[in-house]
């Protein structure tokens, strides 16, 4: 049986701009492997610079890996094969402010993926965009709006709408919740959970927040300086944390409360 997403020996190295051809490349991610099943939520954690954003970007298709393979439903995923990618894997960016085009209306931007990946007519596209907008708790009137007329929470919703409009199997969210205030964050998390139940989406969440991880994640992947040191079910990781680094990541907020 094939997994929904299978990462095999995925690694990323890059050369700094000032480097000479013979200077050793710096390693962002050491080769790692893991699998993700349908409907699961995987949380990727790690300190700053541990390579978790790079991992999200590679899975989301923004970056290409230097080694290793990504398999999706038993099919190899080729980088830069955007049509294969965006029907299955979608990405939500960290900064919703900059990931929306300031000069296009929300409707036009949501129409974009449909335009290039489906055969729908203009009326069908509009219907689909309206439905998706309502699904993320916005109105069909928002079609006419430009990004600068929306609040940051609404922008985040639009980004989620853009991610789910093609009904993908996996959504990669790269610290998508950091910039939001707690109440909006809770709303968005509930929205994401609702969508997961409705559509059976798997999430890969890159996050700093242990609360969110404990609340929604099925599995946890912890990176330390580009190395995968933990990958297991959430309850197992939470009960069995000997490593101080993992403990620090997962329980830091408890110490602050005392």
């Amino acid at each position, binding site marked *: 049986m094939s997994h929904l997403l299978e990462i095999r020996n995925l690694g990323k190295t890059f050369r700094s701009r000032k480097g000479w051809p013979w200077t050793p490349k710096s390693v962002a991610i050491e080769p790692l492997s893991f699998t993700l099943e349908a409907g699961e939520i995987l949380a990727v954690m790690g300190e700053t610079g541990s390579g978790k954003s790079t991992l999200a970007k590679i899975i989301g298709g923004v970056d290409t890996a230097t080694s290793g393979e990504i398999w999706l439903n038993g099919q190899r995923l080729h980088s830069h094969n955007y*049509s294969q990618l*965006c029907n299955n894997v979608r*990405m939500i*960016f960290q900064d919703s402010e900059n990931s929306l085009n300031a*000069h296009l209306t929300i409707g036009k931007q949501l129409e974009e993926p449909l335009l*290039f990946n489906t055969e729908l007519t203009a009326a069908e596209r509009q219907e689909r965009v309206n439905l998706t907008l309502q699904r993320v708790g916005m109105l069909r009137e928002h079609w*006419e709006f430009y990004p600068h007329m929306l609040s940051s929470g609404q922008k985040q919703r639009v980004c989620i709408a853009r991610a789910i409009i093609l009904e993908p199997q996996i959504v990669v969210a790269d610290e998508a919740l950091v910039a939001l205030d707690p109440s909006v964050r809770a709303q968005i998390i509930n929205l994401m959970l609702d969508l997961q139940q409705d559509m059976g989406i798997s999430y890969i969440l890159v996050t700093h927040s242990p609360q969110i991880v404990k609340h929604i994640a099925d599995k946890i992947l912890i990176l330390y300086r580009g190395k995968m040191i933990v990958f297991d079910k959430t309850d197992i990781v939470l009960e069995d944390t000997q490593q101080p680094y993992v403990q620090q990541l997962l329980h830091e907020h408890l110490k602050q409360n005392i």
Partner: protein
Amino acid sequence: MPHVNLYHHDETPSPLQLVWKSFRARFLSMAALYVLLAMILVVLLSPLLAPFNTSTQFSDAIALPPSWVESGNMQFLFGTDDLGRDMLSRLLIGGLYSLGLPILMVAVSSLIGMSIGALAGIDRTIKYQSLSRLFDTLLSIPSFLMALIIIAILGTGFNNVAFAITLSLIPQFIFVTRNAVHEEWHKDYVTASRLNGCSKAYLLYRVILPNVTPTLVMQLTVSLSVAIMDIAALSFLGLGIQAPTPEWGSMLARSLDEVYLSPWSMVLPGVTLFVTIMAINIVGDSLRRALKERVNS
């Protein structure tokens, strides 16, 4: 039954419309824009408007002052020059070469420069990079000097001047477009569109172009005033449009000899040139100001 709009409908101005709105709110910028548009209109219609042929010499009206001076003649509104040619006709037709030609040259050079610049901004392959870097080295030479060099090689004449100035304007367009496009290319919204599976043409025209339009329009106004100055300066030096053809720069040069006898033959083309360039610069400047206001708000 007349159509009645019962419901309040909120306008949703796009960012470009917002820039236009703040541009429009300022009196000076709108005045400059209207002056510029009027100039262009008059220049385009000049063959119809000009009362006389530009080379017809009226031997009974040599160096006649403008009509508002007591010794002037209503028949020649702006007077005549030292050969008895009607100043008004010469100024009007001269506008074709002094304003119409620069607009054409800027159009051609912007088309070439922007396409190369856009390709170089998107495509980081060696082919476009080397091409745009080659033009970048030309930026070290002032555009007027470069036009002079090209004329020195090709010789004077209408075609050569037009060619030289067009060519000398291209590097600036490439530089500005490449930097603007390249800067946008790495922003998240372009990445998001790329992940939507958009084609490169769609990315360039629909996604990036609206975001760099203000920068490009600003560069257009700068280049237009440079082109007007260049062609006037070249003609003033006798390297540009040649003598019998009326051109504001060459009219200025010709009037040097008789500036004490007939000052209007120097003042009129000078003022026209001044007003044109002033209007263009104010439009460009106001555009920059309007953009800044939108970014700040």
